[in-house]
């Protein structure tokens, strides 16, 4: 008979209503054999007692329902963001809260480079938080006037580069390209806006996100990043999944020391719908426990802070024209119908309320034509969905994965300059979703904001913005509701709730190992609950 290990913990919060709390969990063959007290495993022949979690609190392994593998790629570059971050090795990169600190950080990173030619690339920079002085080429020239330098901003839509990098791209005062920002004297100031302007520099500095995304180190780092925040299952939501990507994913996730279950969703727009159907069929055949293939991601609009989200009347408070469709509504109709008829679950990016409505409309038509009740198509972000749209979603069996982290990171901006006070109060409306009976998950969209389900839960519970403001008290949810959203709720949107998301007999032995009980701390302190590591399929990964 296989070995049984009985873990004792200070407390086990199971998310299983039949036994909400326990002290012992018995694990066999990577699965949960029994839950309860010291005798839990007795009727199964007992087991070896393991006390290493004796001071810890176990929760179901967290499930990150909307993040990107790219979160694991950026650490080959220097982090110069405003907020503290941990790298995959567990080292703290303190937030750089002044422009001088950013320059000092860049200088330190420059010193660490092996030779004089290697470009210096940094990421995570956000000028929103450094309002006094804008980062320009002259700052970066003070770091190095000979080595090309590129600082990628946290939104990935901007970068600031130094003079050698501008020269490589042949950008000068004669350049007449939208997106190459200038000083008052007409010289480029080093800021490049949007991909078209960034591309010549990225190409010459060999910054290739697509190559980075399939690198084995990236997949390894993604696992390490997830483990640090208690995540045992994470999506990669918009994956290309070409043959070499897939080979790397299969190899890395198959390693015995890989701590994460990865759920990639195929970019459903890169080929025609018939090709997508065929690809998914192939991909499903290559799934394993730690690599779940078969879902598709679609895009509708852009982002609210980029003014590219499609929003309903009265639009943007600054008068910006309405956003853009990445997929035309009529094309979305066709995609939804073909994929739904083909039995493929869809994760659909919608930020603005007009985009959410278009997605709901498309899915309503598709579900009316082809019966498949348990499809669990999920609207991703859904930041402006209100009660009326949630009611329609509930009627159609749709799920919502809301972008709770936005309340903290961008909530102040949304109230002031994008969609205005009234609609900002009810953004990422977790309360309304639950009240309408819509299955709810919440997410980070890492690397857009850092992965950290307890932080994401804290956002949904407190609705505190970066400035400390409570934005929309009526849409707060309780701590148990938020914990459910980062475990069972997210698992439900991935069709994995029968395997993960709670600590109960029969499920995978996936745990988040915490230093404190998140159900007992002050809700305001939820984000500070320490994560000690994870257990993934019975394998222990302590930080």
């Amino acid at each position, binding site marked *: 008979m296989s070995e049984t290990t009985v873990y004792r913990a200070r407390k086990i919060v199971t998310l299983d209503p039949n036994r909400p709390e326990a002290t012992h969990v018995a694990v066999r063959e990577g699965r949960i054999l029994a839950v309860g007290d010291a005798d839990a495993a007795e009727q199964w022949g007992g087991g070896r007692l393991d006390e290493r979690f004796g001071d810890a609190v176990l929760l179901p392994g967290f499930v990150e329902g909307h993040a990107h593998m790219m979160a694991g790629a950026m650490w080959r570059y220097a982090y110069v963001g405003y907020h503290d971050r941990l790298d995959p090795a567990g080292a703290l990169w303190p937030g750089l809260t002044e422009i001088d600190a950013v320059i000092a950080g860049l200088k330190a990173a420059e010193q660490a480079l092996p030779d004089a030619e290697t470009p210096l690339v940094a990421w995570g920079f956000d000028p929103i938080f450094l309002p006094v002085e804008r980062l320009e080429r002259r700052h970066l020239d003070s770091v190095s006037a000979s080595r090309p330098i590129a600082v990628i901003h946290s939104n990935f839509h901007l970068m600031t580069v130094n003079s050698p990098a501008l020269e490589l791209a042949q950008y000068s005062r004669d350049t007449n390209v939208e*997106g190459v920002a200038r000083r008052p004297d007409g010289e480029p100031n080093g800021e490049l806006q*949007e*991909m078209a302007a960034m*591309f*010549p520099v990225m190409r010459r500095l060999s910054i*290739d996100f697509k190559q980075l995304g399939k690198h084995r180190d990236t997949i390894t780092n993604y696992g390490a990043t997830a483990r640090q925040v208690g995540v045992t299952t994470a999506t990669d939501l918009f994956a290309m999944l070409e043959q070499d990507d897939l080979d790397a994913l299969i190899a890395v996730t198959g390693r015995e020391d890989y701590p994460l279950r990865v759920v990639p969703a195929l970019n459903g727009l890169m*080929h025609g719908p018939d*090709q997508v159907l065929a690809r998914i069929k192939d991909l499903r055949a290559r799934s394993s426990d730690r690599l779940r293939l078969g879902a598709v991601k679609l895009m509708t609009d852009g982002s609210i802070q980029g003014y590219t989200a499609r929003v309903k009347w009265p639009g943007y408070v600054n008068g910006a024209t309405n956003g853009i469709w990445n997929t035309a509504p009529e094309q979305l109709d066709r995609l939804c119908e073909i994929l739904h008829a083909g039995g493929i679950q869809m994760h659909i990016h919608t930020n603005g309320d007009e985009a959410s409505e278009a997605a709901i409309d498309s899915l309503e038509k598709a579900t009316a034509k082809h019966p498949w009740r348990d499809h669990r198509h999920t609207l991703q972000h859904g930041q402006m969905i209100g009660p009326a749209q949630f009611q329609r979603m509930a009627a159609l069996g749709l799920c919502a994965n809301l972008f709770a982290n936005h309340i903290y990171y961008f909530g102040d901006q949304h109230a002031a300059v994008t969609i205005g006070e009234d609609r900002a109060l009810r953004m990422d409306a977790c309360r309304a979703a639950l009240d309408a009976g819509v299955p709810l998950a919440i997410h980070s969209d890492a690397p857009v904001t850092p992965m950290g389900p307890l932080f994401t839960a804290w956002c949904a519970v407190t609705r505190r913005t970066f400035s400390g403001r409570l934005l929309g008290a009526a849409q707060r949810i309780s701590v148990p509701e938020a914990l459910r959203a980062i475990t069972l709720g997210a698992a439900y949107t991935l069709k994995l709730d029968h395997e993960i998301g709670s600590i109960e007999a029969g499920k995978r032995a996936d745990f988040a190992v915490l230093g404190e009980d998140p159900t007992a701390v002050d809700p305001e302190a939820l984000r500070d609950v320490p994560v000690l590591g994870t257990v993934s399929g019975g394998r222990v990964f302590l930080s």
Partner: protein
Amino acid sequence: MSQPLPLTVVSGYLGAGKTSLINHLLRHAGGRRIMVLVNDFGALNIDADLLESAEEDTLTLSNGCVCCTLGGDLFYALANALDRRPRPDYLVIEASGVAQPAKIAMAAQAEPELALGGIVTLVDAANIATLLADPLIGGQVAEQIESADLLILTKTDIADETAARAAIAEHSASPVVVARHGAVPADLLLGLPGGGSLPEPAHLHHYELYASWSYAGRDRVTLATFRQLLERPPSGLYRLKGRVLLRGGGALEAHLVGRQASITPCPEPEETRLVAIGPKPLFDPGALETVWRHVLDKDGDAPASPASLSRRLVVSRLA
């Protein structure tokens, strides 16, 4: 550095006829090695006799053309096209039905190894009025028309051409040509073949869709008057390219496509040579000849030194 790779953007809403146009272009490439980036080549239907090999993401044609999928990532595809050896002569991107062609064109303007070969927008005469009035998609369809250097009106056999032209005119003053089944000559879409040299006379005036004009001679011009020509070319002129000798020494290489023109200093050629084309009947070669004679005859301008131009200069044009 080698000549920049010209990038032509083919835009248009769903069903406007982009695939037909690209099919026609690949079948009538006229010896050009064209690389086409498409969203879905399932729809392309390349004849078996034209197909040399087919891989998952690339079709190689026996006439030297290549067709690749965009794979959802424009910039990755652009980098691949630039790194390809041998590099194609022309790059054509089939934008998605809701793409913003101006954004794709920006990439060609920013990247020194690319040159914008124009934005061509196809318009379905049968439903353009409905689309422009659509509250969800109308704005993006209008933007595609507004960005266009050349508009191609399709399905005029089943729709009211006059009404469609009126709808377009509200958004664009760029030339409009009518095409059936995507039959737009490559000369118009991509420019006359050859690296600055004059094509064979027999090649010109070949199509009934466009007219052409050319000049070769030892005359010299001033930067100022030549620049004026690029800034205010006669109506209907869609493409102009060539090299001109400057008074006082030096020479300029000029490229004009639609609403964009650029001049770059170049080594002195033996003579000034220019070639221009535009859609019929909008483009009148006689009118261009008159303007050109004026440029040649005009003197009194101080000879401007090409040294004042350090690199490619984009000439802003009056709309």
